[in-house]
């Protein structure tokens, strides 16, 4: 009943149908891949740091010149702590979404090859409390565990590692008490952190986002001008501008790095700016793409309705109901979109393979093919609804009219 007019429609309008099928195929290929890319970037942006990002801020000073680093640290920290609203503060080499300071290769044996590249957070007393780090097993460092730095890292010592790093390094056994080496420096794990992202999360792939180590140290002269502070969420801007004033009076010739002295929330936004731009662009293209596809489907359907007025009139005169006519156009649209999707699957997978090859990204999962198909079917039905209703309104008398 329904099939015969459908076949005729396909045969009579070969070229137009072919163009529409190809258009839908390309739309489908781009749509699936764009949605997948957007979803991937959204996941990175939304990744949890496990920190109270809006109530934590980094303070970065540079160019302290000669003089005792320990004295500068002590004076600056005392100044920061004296600002009303500051709850905790400590020396910390960097913060998540700040500058990468100590990314090192670590080995499981003294002379072994690198097992993983991880970020060291090197912090003085107060920094754990300021960050609000909590261990899920083991313990936090005691006062005696804060050891002096030898160069950029402590010579050896006790450290906290994140769960994801310990799962990677020691998958089968309990990580507490395990040791690892950075060249000749030996470190022993005393506690496991639920999560703590590296300074530039995602820069070494998605699996290593949380591969961080916290080393408690006495900063001394080797780690100067880099702090973390905690204050209440709504108060951060006032606190930060006070920090700048206080620093200017304590160490007048030091340079206050405004771009890096920000809340972690602000640093996160700046860090992900590029992903946000790409998401915005892809989302814009997807919207435009759906709009253009709807133009094409609706425009051609209107044309067919006009062209087939007499044909419709005859079918109506021979007993077809309005619903039959509407269904005919809807079914025709469904069959064209389906053909488009069938070709589109090839394009989608092809694009995904090319992308995977050049950017080492995972291939398109099946669910995106499904979602893309559903949205195009839906779009097709919405776009054809108007013309189909107009077709259904054609009176049987059109059969004997011209045009």
């Amino acid at each position, binding site marked *: 009943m329904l099939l015969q007019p459908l076949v005729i429609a396909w045969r009579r309008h070969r070229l137009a149908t072919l163009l529409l099928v190809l258009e839908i195929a390309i739309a489908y290929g781009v749509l699936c891949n764009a949605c997948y890319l957007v979803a991937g970037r959204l996941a990175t942006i939304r990744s949890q740091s496990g920190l109270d990002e809006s109530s934590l801020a980094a303070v970065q000073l540079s160019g302290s010149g000669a003089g005792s680093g320990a004295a500068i640290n002590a004076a600056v920290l005392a100044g920061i702590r004296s600002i009303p609203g500051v709850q905790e503060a400590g020396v910390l080499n960097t913060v998540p979404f700040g500058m990468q300071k100590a990314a090192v290769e670590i080995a499981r044996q003294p002379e072994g090859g690198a097992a993983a590249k991880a970020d060291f957070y090197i912090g003085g007393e107060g920094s754990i409390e300021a960050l609000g780090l909590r261990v899920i097993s083991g313990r936090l460092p005691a006062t005696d565990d804060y050891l002096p730095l030898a160069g950029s890292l402590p010579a050896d010592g006790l450290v906290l590692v994140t769960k994801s790093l310990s799962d990677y390094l020691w998958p089968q056994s309990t990580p507490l008490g395990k040791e690892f080496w950075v060249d000749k420096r030996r470190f022993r794990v005393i506690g496991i952190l639920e999560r703590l992202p590296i300074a530039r999360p995602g820069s070494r792939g998605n699996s290593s986002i949380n591969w961080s180590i916290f080393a408690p140290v006495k900063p001394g002269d080797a780690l100067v001008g880099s702090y973390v502070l905690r204050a209440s969420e709504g108060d951060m801007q006032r606190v930060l501008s006070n920090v700048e004033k206080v620093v200017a009076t304590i160490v007048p010739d030091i340079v206050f790095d405004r771009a890096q002295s920000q809340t972690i929330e602000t640093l996160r936004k700046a860090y992900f700016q590029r992903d946000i731009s790409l998401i915005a662009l892809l989302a814009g293209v997807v919207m435009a*793409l759906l709009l253009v596809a709807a133009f094409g489907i609706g425009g051609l359907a209107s044309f067919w309705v006009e062209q087939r007025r007499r044909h419709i009139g005859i079918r109506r005169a021979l007993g077809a109901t309005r619903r039959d006519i509407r269904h005919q156009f809807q079914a025709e649209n469904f069959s064209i979109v389906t053909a488009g999707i069938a070709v589109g699957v090839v394009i989608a997978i092809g694009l995904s393979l090319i992308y995977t090859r050049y950017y080492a990204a995972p291939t398109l999962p099946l669910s995106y093919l499904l979602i893309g198909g559903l949205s195009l079917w839906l779009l097709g039905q919405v776009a054809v609804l108007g013309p189909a209703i107009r077709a259904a309104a054609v009176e049987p008398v059109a059969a004997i009219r011209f045009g």
Partner: protein
Amino acid sequence: MFGYYLELALKGLARNKILTTLMVLSIAMGIGTSMTTLTIMHALAGDPLPSRSAYLYYPQLDPFPTVAADHTEPPDVMDYRSAVDLWEAGRADRQALIASSPIKVRAPDTKVPAAMLSMLSTTSDFFPMFKVSFKFGGAWTPEEDRSRARVVVISSSLNELLFGGANSVGRIIRARDADLRIVGVLEPWRPVPLFYEVMGGGFLRGNTADFYGRPEDILAPFSTGLDINAPAFSPFMCWQPHDEAVSMMKSSCVWVGLWVELGDSAKVRSYREFLDGYAKQQVALGRFVAGKSTRLRSLMEWLDYNGVVPSDVRLQTWVAFSFLGMCLLNAAGLLLASFLRRGYEIGTRRALGATTGDVFFQHMVEAGLLGVLGGIAGMMLTLLGLYLMRLQPTPYADLIRLDLGMSLTIIALSMVSALLAGVLPAIRACRVAPSLQLKAL
């Protein structure tokens, strides 16, 4: 005849305004997105020194002190000793050492607060080699390269900030703890990308936006830079953990870039031999172990090797052009509908003696007109797109603009696209049989 076709085309387009609007919008959206991304691509992928890039080369050596497991390419920069050895040998027409470091800068006789700036440590050939021109003064001399002279060249923007744009040659700025005498002020200079410092592209996973930053504000002789700011230089890569106690001049870490100018292919050949010879000699001396692989890439090869255009920009361009393809298919479908709707008109013209060629040509004129309209609308969308892109805080935001060439490209691309979209519908239109259509009247 063309005028008549144009008139017909205008009438045809005016007859069904909705369909025409849909077609123009469809072409405009495709053109707008693809030209926005293409303009950015054009800004980022160009040659930073069109007249000189063919003569500029970037030598690489392999100073691994131990045999490393998996490396096929030498590191992106050299250790101090190798770079200075090659520079001192002077086998190229010109040569410049490159290293940058953060430094605190102040002008003692101004009220501008101290700032941390990036200092480029280089050698006097840098300026003529890269065609950097001076607003005031000039470069330091080769003697000053060797004598660690306390001299400096500053950028035009720093001169503006510190001295209000006045001729500041002879004045003093304080960098870290040293007083440097200004010998030259540069004209505004913005190489795209910042080619002489492009390195490490292989580690960036396509996130290369920082290659498009601005040049340093202060430039000092290489030896002077090391004298006054030694602790601030950081290694690019080390084979052993970098020991801060060992001076960067003695360390095996790599951190110095070297650019050479070689005027013809014979010089390139002999420099290659020289480079290989140096590497062999160092292996014989036991300083290098795996040191036999050397490279001498030209500037553009070096940019390609580092994949300077950010992967997001490439991706955007691909997506935009796929979208353009789809828009064209869409326009073709709609054109077909619009042409065939006028079947009786075509039939009449054919019956009155128009050849199929006439009919084809007439419809191509209509498609071309559509292309012009789509191009104008697409240009507006491109301007909007570029405006939105400039709002993004990327290092290259200020480079994004539409020049005359790209504007012409927009109109051309739009015309070509519309004509392409029009071919099939126009062929179909001229196959309309005259009699059948007349009977239907």
